[in-house]
C-alpha cells in the first residue's frame, strides 16, 4: 500500500468515469488478485492464507486457487490457463523456469515498484538474477531455504561421544564411520529423486563452491569432468553405502522416528524438515542443526527460493492488485509472517531475526546467507530446480539417482555420464 496505489486507483477510476459514467465502474478498481499455487494445505497453505489476509487487510480482493499435487500439476494448470488466454494475475514459479515461461506469455514489468522499495540491494545477487530475465523484474521471491543443511540426531551423537556438527567432509566421514561402528545407520536421508540430488549438491558445494558454480550453474564441460565433481561422486558413494537400504524411493519423513531415537545419525535436508520434526511430536532439542560441511571454511549457501511470477492482465483492478501484491511480498512484515509459518528464512538480507518468533536454526541460516553472499558463495540448488531449467535438472538427476541406487556404477563412470547427459540435454 502507499499513496501511489491510491493515486493509481484514482486515476483508473477517473478514466473509468470518463469513459462510462457509472458508479459500479468506479468501484471496480478495488485491487484484486488471482493466484495459483500448489500450496493448498499444511504450513504452506497456512502461510499463503496469511498472505491473503494481509492482502485483504490492505483493501484488496484475494482469489487463491491452489492446484494440489506436485509442481508439475500446477504447471499444467498454468499452461491450460495461458493457452486459454486467461492467465492468473500471479502464479507460483521458481528458478530458471521463470525465464522459460516468460517467453510464452507477456509478463508485468515490476522494475518501478522494485526500485521504489530499494529491494534489489537486499536480495542475494544470484537470486535476483533469476527473477529479472532480460534485466526486467517480472517475478518476486517469497522465501528462502538452504538445501545444504545438516541435521544430527542428539541421541546418535551421544552414543559416539560427539558434540558438534562436522565442519569438513573429512570430519563428516570420520563421524559417520564411528556411528556405523556403533550400529547406527549414519545417513538418515530418504531415496527420492530430489533427495538424491540434494546429497550430491551438498557434497559438491562443500568440496569446492567455485567448482559448483562452474559445473552446475554454468555447465562448464571441463569442470563437469574435473576432479571436484569426481570427489563429490566419491562422497556420494560413501553416503549411499551409509544409507538404510530400505531408503530407496522413500520420503525422508518415514525415517524421522528412527533418526530421533538415535538409530540413524545424519540428515541432509532443507530447513523445512524442522517443521516436519515438530509436527511429528518431537522437539527442537532432539537434534543439532547447521550448515553441512564446507571444506574451505567459509559459509556456502545453496539457495532454494519460492517465487511468484506476474502475468500481464488488462483489467485495471488486477493491475492494481499486482502492484499491491508486489509491495506486500517485498515487505518485511509479510516476509516475517511467511517464514515464521513455514520455517524458511526471509528473502531480505537486512532483517533482524533476534525476535521470539524465530528459531535458532533460522537465525543461523540467515546469518550464513549474509556471510555467503559476502564471500560470493551463495549458489543455486540443483536438486530443487534453481540452478537449471527443469529439462536439464531432470537429465542430471537421472544420473545422480541411478548412481545412488546402483552401486555397480563407479564414480569415474558417473562423472562421464553426468557430463554426457548435460551435453545431450543442452
Amino acid at each position, binding site marked *: 500500500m502507499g499513496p501511489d496505489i491510491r493515486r493509481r486507483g484514482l486515476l483508473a477510476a477517473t478514466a473509468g468515469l470518463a469513459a462510462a459514467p457509472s458508479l459500479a465502474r468506479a468501484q471496480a478498481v478495488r485491487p484484486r488478485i488471482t493466484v*495459483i499455487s500448489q500450496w*493448498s*494445505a*499444511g*504450513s*504452506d*497453505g*497456512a502461510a499463503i*492464507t496469511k498472505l*491473503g489476509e494481509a492482502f485483504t487487510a490492505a483493501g484488496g480482493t484475494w*482469489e*487463491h*486457487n*491452489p*492446484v*494440489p*499435487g*506436485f*509442481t508439475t*500439476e500446477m504447471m*499444467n*494448470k498454468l*499452461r*491450460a*490457463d495461458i*493457452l*486459454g*488466454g*486467461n492467465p492468473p494475475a500471479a502464479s507460483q514459479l521458481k528458478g530458471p523456469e521463470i525465464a522459460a515461461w516468460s517467453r510464452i506469455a507477456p509478463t508485468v514489468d515490476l522494475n518501478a515498484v522494485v526500485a521504489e522499495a530499494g529491494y534489489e540491494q537486499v536480495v542475494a545477487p544470484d537470486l535476483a538474477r533469476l527473477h529479472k530475465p532480460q534485466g526486467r523484474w517480472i517475478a518476486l521471491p517469497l522465501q528462502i531455504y538452504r538445501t545444504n543443511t545438516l541435521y544430527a540426531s542428539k541421541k546418535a551423537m551421544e552414543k559416539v561421544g560427539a558434540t558438534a556438527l562436522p565442519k569438513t567432509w573429512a570430519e563428516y566421514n570420520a563421524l559417520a564411520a564411528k556411528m556405523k561402528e556403533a550400529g547406527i545407520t549414519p545417513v538418515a536421508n530418504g531415496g527420492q529423486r*530430489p533427495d538424491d540430488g540434494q546429497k550430491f549438491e551438498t557434497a559438491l558445494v562443500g568440496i569446492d563452491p567455485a567448482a559448483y558454480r562452474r559445473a552446475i550453474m554454468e555447465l562448464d564441460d571441463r569442470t563437469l569432468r574435473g576432479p571436484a565433481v569426481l570427489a563429490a561422486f566419491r562422497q556420494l558413494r560413501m553416503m549411499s553405502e551409509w544409507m538404510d537400504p530400505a531408503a530407496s524411493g522413500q*520420503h525422508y*519423513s*518415514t525415517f*524421522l*522416528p528412527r533418526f*530421533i531415537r538415535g538409530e540413524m545419525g545424519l540428515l541432509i535436508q*532443507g530447513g*523445512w524438515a524442522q*517443521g*516436519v520434526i515438530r*509436527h*511429528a*511430536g*518431537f522437539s527442537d532439542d532432539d537434534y543439532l542443526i547447521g550448515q553441512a560441511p564446507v571444506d574451505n571454511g567459509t559459509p556456502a549457501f545453496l539457495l532454494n527460493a519460492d517465487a511468484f511470477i506476474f502475468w500481464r492482465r488488462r483489467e485495471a483492478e488486477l493491475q492494481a492488485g499486482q502492484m499491491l501484491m508486489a509491495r506486500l511480498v517485498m515487505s518485511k512484515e509479510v516476509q516475517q509472517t511467511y517464514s515464521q509459518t*513455514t520455517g524458511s528464512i526471509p528473502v531480505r538480507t537486512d532483517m533482524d531475526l533476534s525476535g521470539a518468533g524465530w528459531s535458532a536454526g533460522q537465525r543461523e541460516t540467515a546469518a550464513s546467507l549474509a556471510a555467503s553472499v559476502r564471500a560470493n558463495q551463495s549458489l543455486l540448488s540443483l536438486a530443487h530446480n534453481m540452478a537449471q531449467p527443469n529439462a536439464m535438472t531432470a537429465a542430471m538427476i537421472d544420473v545422480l539417482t541411478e548412481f545412488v541406487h546402483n552401486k555397480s556404477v563407479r564414480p569415474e563412470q558417473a562423472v562421464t555420464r553426468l557430463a554426457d547427459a548435460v551435453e545431450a540435454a543442452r
Partner: protein
Amino acid sequence: MAEAIRRQAPLSRWVIYAVLVAFAAFYLVPLIVTVLNSVRTEQDIGSTSVVGWPRELALSNFGKAWGTYCIAQRCEGISPFMWNSILMVVPATIISTLIGALNGYSIALWRFRGDNWVFGIITLGVFLPEQMKLVPWTLVLRDLGLSNTITALVFIHVIQGISFTTLFCRNYYVAIPPDLLKAAKIDGAGYFRIFWRIVLPLSPPILIVTVIWQFTHIWNEFLYGVTFTTGAQQPVTAALIALSVSVAEAPQYGVQSAAVLIAALPTLLVYLFGGKYFLRGLTAGAVK
C-alpha cells in the same frame, strides 16, 4: 451350473472357501492399514511408524476430514468436493454407459459397413494415455468455451468413456445367440424393439460392470480434475491429493486416511448395490 457343483464332496467346498478367504485377506491388508491410520493421531503415526496399531483412538480424524480440515483456505474438509465429484460422476457415468450399450449393440448385432474399422478405432481409444491427451483437451475446451467448469469434466469423461463402455457391451452382446435376433426380426421387431425387449433384459451383469468401471475411474481421476477446474469446483481427488502430496512436509496420514475412506464410500455403495444385479443377471440367464 450350480446343480452340478452341489453334488461335490464337502472337502472340495472347504478348499474353495479357503482359497476365497485367503484372497480376501490379501486384498484387505492395505485397507486395514488405512483404517488403522484413520484412527491414529498425527503424533502417533509420525513418532512410531506409518504401519501400526493405534495407541489411542482418534475418531476426530473423520470429523476433520469431512468438515473442518482446511484445504485451500476453506475449512470445510472434503465435503464440498464430494458434492462436486457426484455432480460430475453421475451424469458422466449414465450418459457414457447408455451410449456404450447402444454402440455395443449396433456393432455386435446390427452389422454395418465398416463396423470392424469403427470397433478397431474405438478399441484404440481405450489405450490413449491421459497424459497425451491433456494438451489437446485444453485446446478443445478453450474452443468450446468450457474451461474451468464441471461440465467440461463431464464432457471429457463421456467422450473418453464411450471407448470403454462400447468395448464392454460389444464383447458381451457378441455372445448373444444370433437365432434370437433372427426370430425377432422375422416377427418385425426393429432396432429399438430388439434392444429394449431382448438385449436390455440380458444386460444387467455387463451394465453393472460398465457402471463400476466408469464410476470408479471418473471418481478417482485426478489429472483432468485439477487441470480443468479451479478451487471450489474441484473433484474430491484434488482434495485428497491436497492432504497427501507435499514435497517439503510430511503428509497428514491420519486425516488423509479418514478422507480416503469417506471418499471411497460412494464407489463401495455402487459395488454392493450392483451385486444384486449380478445375481439378477444369473436368474435371467436361468429362466430362459
